[in-house]
């Protein structure tokens, strides 16, 4: 099958959606499919895999509490159209087409079997509801929609008035399953791990740091291993900060701790970091966010603590540190449960969506007869 995938975000800016697209593309290629990805790339020097085509540079605009990337000008539209023409795709797969981005531009310029994946979960997105009627002209071209979680699906149903099938995010289990602990870890005093942007309040490192003194009452020797981008206000006693790490070092971090903490306070659509921890065999304490509770099967696969509540988080971490048998039990349960999220399985489900979408459309992917560029998109948004 020939698959064209469009990323809304720049290839060279690390992020969940871009990582998802790269993993999906590689899983499809491993199954023998022809895959082409079109994406913004901010730095001309960035080395790219041979399946990636540059769409141009992106311009950041704030949107929905984060930053959306906008491609300007008819140059991008012309490039998208040439890519669509040359690709002769059986299916076009656009990611997060609800953002004003390359994905929407590609959707505007293509017709035929088109699938979209919706990544975001914003229970109260007023912007999305406001844009619904103007997005409708483009979204009605979709042959099928995927949501990465029930929360993301609910966002589509509530704000875009559509529906989607749920295909979860994937994880490369083999990358995480065999990792060796870092030298000197976990040690005898108890070790807790954290992965995520350290200066992003929604990731909850502050909550974990507030919980640390409370955990120390029961486990005086406890150490915290932290990895992630951002500015860390340290040093803090008992905390080792690694900064941004590679995937393989992330796997080693997860193998180095007795408890992996995910103290996020909100804004999570899925919780891919939990899958990575499960694959690596790290027992989990996570906030009781809907998305997390679902991945952790309401506490069967990890312990839940009140989101944003350091006392509850400290109690859960202390409890798990004192219970080696419970940790072993969680490790075993999680290792079995995470198999369902391996990219080999998830990729099969995405292919099932492609095939269903192709069967529900006529012909293959072609360009629209009339070019749609960013100004036309804007006009459409303003008038329709």
């Amino acid at each position, binding site marked *: 099958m020939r698959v064209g995938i469009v990323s809304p975000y720049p290839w060279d800016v690390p992020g969940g959606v871009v990582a998802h697209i790269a993993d999906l593309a590689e899983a499809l290629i491993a199954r023998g499919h022809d895959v082409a990805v079109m994406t913004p790339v901010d730095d001309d020097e960035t080395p790219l895999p041979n399946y990636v085509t540059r769409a141009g540079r992106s311009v950041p605009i704030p949107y929905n509490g984060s930053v959306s990337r906008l491609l300007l000008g008819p140059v991008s539209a012309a490039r998208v159209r040439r890519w669509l023409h040359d690709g002769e795709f059986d299916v076009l797969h656009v990611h997060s087409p609800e953002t004003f981005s390359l994905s929407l531009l590609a959707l505007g310029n293509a017709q035929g079997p088109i699938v979209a994946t919706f990544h975001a979960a914003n229970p109260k997105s007023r912007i999305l509801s406001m844009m619904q009627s103007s997005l409708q002209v483009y979204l009605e071209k979709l042959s099928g929609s995927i949501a990465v979680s029930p929360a993301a699906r609910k966002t589509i149903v509530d704000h875009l*008035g*559509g529906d989607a099938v749920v295909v979860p995010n994937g994880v490369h289990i083999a990358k995480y399953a065999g990792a060796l602990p870092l030298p000197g870890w976990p040690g005898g005093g108890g070790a807790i791990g954290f992965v995520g942007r350290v200066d992003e309040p929604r990731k909850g490192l502050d909550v974990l740091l507030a919980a640390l003194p409370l955990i120390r009452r029961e486990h005086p020797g406890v150490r915290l291993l932290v990895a992630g981008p951002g500015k860390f206000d340290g040093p803090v006693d008992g905390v080792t900060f690694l900064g941004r790490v590679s995937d393989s070092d992330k796997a080693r971090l997860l193998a180095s701790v007795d408890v992996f903490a995910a103290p996020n306070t909100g804004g999570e659509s899925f919780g891919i970091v939990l899958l990575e921890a499960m694959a690596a065999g790290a027992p989990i304490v996570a906030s009781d966010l809907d998305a997390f509770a679902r991945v952790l099967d309401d506490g069967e696969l990890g312990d839940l603590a009140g989101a944003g509540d350091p006392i509850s988080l400290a109690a859960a971490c202390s409890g798990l540190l004192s219970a080696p048998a419970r940790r072993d039990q969680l490790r075993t349960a999680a*290792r079995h449960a995470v198999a369902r999220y391996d990219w080999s399985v998830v990729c099969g489900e995405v292919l099932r969506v492609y095939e269903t979408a192709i069967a529900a459309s006529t012909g293959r992917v072609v360009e629209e007869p009339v070019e749609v560029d960013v100004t036309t998109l804007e006009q459409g948004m303003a008038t329709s």
Partner: protein
Amino acid sequence: MAYLIAAVVVVALVALYALRTARRLDRLHARVDAAAAGLTAQLLRRAAMAGAFGASVSLKPEAAAALASAARTAAETPGLGGDREVAETAVTRALLQAATSSPESFTTPSPAATEMHDAALRASFARRFYNDTVRDVLAVRDLRVVRWLRLAGHARHPAYFEMADAELPTAQIPVASGPTIEP
């Protein structure tokens, strides 16, 4: 004179908008037809798989008979009308009853179980995609310009397809074996 020019401009704009909407609706009608064909194909496959599945795994006799009969009725019911909805829901019910009385037929890995699971999922996907397209068509048909200028013409008024989807038990996915090092 100025009024005349203004009137001509307004008429031209309305005509352009009507033309664009008519083209949009035309395309949506084609899409809903394709989606209906896709859904029909997936429902037929599901019925065929249900028949084959009932014949190849060992179900309780009454469950097997109910499944075979429901699958046959569904396959013989044409179109996507109310009687098809009833017939497909009966297939779902027969599958769920079989899953309750002989869960091992579904959870023991076998080609028939894999195909059955796949066919049930595809039918539910196709149904969701079809209903989504129906919703898009109905939204555009509901626009004032479409109603007043009768832009929908004689195109069939599409209807949602409602039925119970079968969430079937499946085989446990084996744990990836790797150089796993136990702590």
